[in-house]
């Protein structure tokens, strides 16, 4: 099986779950015998042993916005008087990338086209046009998730919709996301296959010491890790922190990540009078991510809308109990965790305190979730993708 795959980011040049997921999935696909050619906007700083990387050289020279597939939040931008959510250069890059795709598709030999998220859909559609091979679009997130349903970018939504309808099959990272695809994008449910993400098992490794963050060793640590954007619910995290500190003043809150709500969250912490109890690490990569998971007593993912949420699996793999939003794909995969409505700060605080106070709760959560991870593997996900490919090739 030869796959022409279009992606936007790939580790180590990766800023979020999309890159992590592409890596995990392609590695497992390769091990199952698939030959993958992965097209990226640029291959600079990236290499791979298990697949062929092709650069579309789509990066524009003058980069005004950070080249990230993620958007800023309306809430933040309106607060700061910004009008445009996506920089002009991003759209330019997307269209250059799509143009390059046509040429690449003529040169490469492949059986199926597989593209990841809206940035690559146009590329996939063009590759399909010149090759007449079946197209799979993989939905890791929709515009509705990124915006929490507020101020949806029409242009992005239209690209997503066009890609899903042009595709011969749509892969959704969860049933939760499949629901969005069928109800908000008008795609028939039979065309959508659910392939959950996974996370690689990891060896035990080093942890940060709380002292490195100026935290006393007896303090309990609550971790938020993700982009600091509307979608991830950092505001709910900070409101919960305020409540928790009323009962457990020794607790410390670590926010790992960056994003357009960072300033808002920093100001909010000051306004609530808890600035000295909330620590910002900035954007973390690679082993630093694992270190911060291991340092934490509980990982909290209060996302407004989380198509999957690989970070929850990574936290579990690092031996940390997790509390996740009910609006998440990962909650379909892991049952041994605490689930909350992201807006219910009272319950969120209550559950965080529960994990911090009751040793047996944290231990059971951690042990059972870890054993549940045994059935979560990229190989299963890859096999499901192969099944999708085969079903399309049979139709041809």
């Amino acid at each position, binding site marked *: 099986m030869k796959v022409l795959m279009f992606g936007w980011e790939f580790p180590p040049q990766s800023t979020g779950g999309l890159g992590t997921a592409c890596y995990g999935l392609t590695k497992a696909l390769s091990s199952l015998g698939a030959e993958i050619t992965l097209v990226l906007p640029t291959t600079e700083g990236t290499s791979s042993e298990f697949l062929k990387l092709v650069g579309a050289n789509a990066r524009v020279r003058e980069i005004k916005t950070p080249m990230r597939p993620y958007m800023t939040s309306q809430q933040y931008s309106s607060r700061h008087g910004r009008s445009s959510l996506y920089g002009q250069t991003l759209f330019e890059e997307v269209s250059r990338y799509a143009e390059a795709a046509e040429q690449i598709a003529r040169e490469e030999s492949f059986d199926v086209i597989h593209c990841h998220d809206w940035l690559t859909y146009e590329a996939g559609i063009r590759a399909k046009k010149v090759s007449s091979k079946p197209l799979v679009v993989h939905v890791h997130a929709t515009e509705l998730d990124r915006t929490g349903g507020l101020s949806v970018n029409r242009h992005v939504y239209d690209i997503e919709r066009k890609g899903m309808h042009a595709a011969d099959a749509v892969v959704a990272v969860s049933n939760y996301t499949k629901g969005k695809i069928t109800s908000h994008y008008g795609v028939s449910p039979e065309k959508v296959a659910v392939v959950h993400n996974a996370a690689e098992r990891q060896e035990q490794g080093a942890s940060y010491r709380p002292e490195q963050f100026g935290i006393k060793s007896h303090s309990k640590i609550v971790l938020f890790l993700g982009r600091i954007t509307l979608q991830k619910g950092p505001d709910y995290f900070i409101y919960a922190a305020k409540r928790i500190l009323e*009962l457990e003043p020794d607790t410390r809150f670590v926010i790992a990540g960056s994003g357009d709500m960072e300033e808002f969250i920093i100001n909010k912490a000051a306004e609530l009078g808890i600035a000295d109890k909330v620590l910002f690490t900035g954007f973390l990569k690679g082993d630093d991510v694992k270190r911060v998971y291991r340092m934490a007593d509980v990982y909290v993912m209060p996302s407004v809308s989380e198509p999957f949420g690989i970070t929850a699996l990574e936290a579990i793999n690092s031996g940390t109990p997790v509390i996740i939003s009910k609006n998440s794909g990962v909650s379909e995969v892991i049952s*041994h965790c605490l689930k909350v409505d992201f807006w219910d700060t009272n319950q969120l605080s209550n*559950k965080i305190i*529960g994990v911090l106070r009751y040793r047996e709760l944290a231990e059971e959560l951690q042990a059972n979730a870890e054993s549940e991870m045994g059935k979560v593997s990229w190989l299963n996900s890859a096999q499901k993708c192969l099944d999708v490919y085969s079903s399309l090739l049979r139709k041809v």
Partner: protein
Amino acid sequence: MVNVCLYFQVHQPYRIRNYTVFDIGNSSNYFNDEKNVSVLKRVAEKCYLPANRLLLELLEKHPEFKASFSFSGVVLEQLETHAPEALQSFKELAATKRVEILDETYHHSLAFIYSKKEFEEQVKLHTEKVRKLFGQKPTVFRNTELIYNNELAAFAERMGYKGILAEGADHILGWRSPNFVYKPKTSNGMRLLLKNYRLSDDIAFRFSERSWPEWPLTADKFARWVNAVNGNGNCVNLFMDYETFGEHQWAETGIFDFLRHMPAEILRHPDNSFATPSEIVKEHEPVAELDVHNLISWADVERDLSAWLGNSMQQAAIRELYRMESEVKASGDKKLLEDWRKLQTSDNFYYMCTKWFSDGDVHKYFNPYDSPYDAFMSFMNIINDIRIRIKKRKK
């Protein structure tokens, strides 16, 4: 001669509400009244009332028909308040003299394992409740979830009971049959009645299971299985939750029709009859002594206590609860004692079971929590509130 012994367990707990850390010290209202009342009314409607009506008919129609029940004290309280008509129909059954009531712990608790003193007090409360409501003095004891061992048999014998029920678990019986009366190793006068779990579970669990080769189960087929015991057994003990009829097995499955025809089909064989536990204890000599050192129960395939005490949350919760016993009792606060006892109900620990949580199965039945972890948190928060109440009382 085979005595068929029907025994039904009737119990509904006081489920705990979602009690948060912010409630500690601020609210001593622990129970989910709304849920408890709605479950009770639903079960009364779907099971207790129609099943009682049917049993009364059967008692009238077949003079040889008999049955037995045990009720937790907490379900009786709830029936008195929220489903008096169902309680009335249970009283009518008891009044026929062919329906025997057994004793258990008032709060459907695991007290025997943690406090013999509390256990004895709860059994006495129960005896008193049964006397008051049904005018009977039980001589046969059944412990919560058929939890049993030698020590319990000896304890119950000292309390004056003549017989005791237990699970006919393979690992205690070995090659032996549950269809005889046994004698517990540690007691002389006590008689042990063992549940025939195959035949019991054919009704309680498999009745509506379409993938079961024996589906559909009819009364005459079931009677043939009972008849097969003739010649190699004295009694067939069919022990099950009463909620089997109409709740675990919905009316649509035909469970009531099965029950309606079962007595006649069984009585068709001249050597079959029905008997209550105390009659079996009187009529049959024990065939052997059974040595049950470790605690067994009627739960799950393991037939052990892991559904209630299998994980560290369950163990911590129950340990903390019983640790407060003397202080709660010394406080002289009746409401506090009552709350503390309601927390002992085994269901509270069952809801914390993580064994099959990811598969989502029988443990979900009427479980008011999102997860075992949520159940544990509410429970521990309440324990902390009780501690505050004890402290306040001391001042």
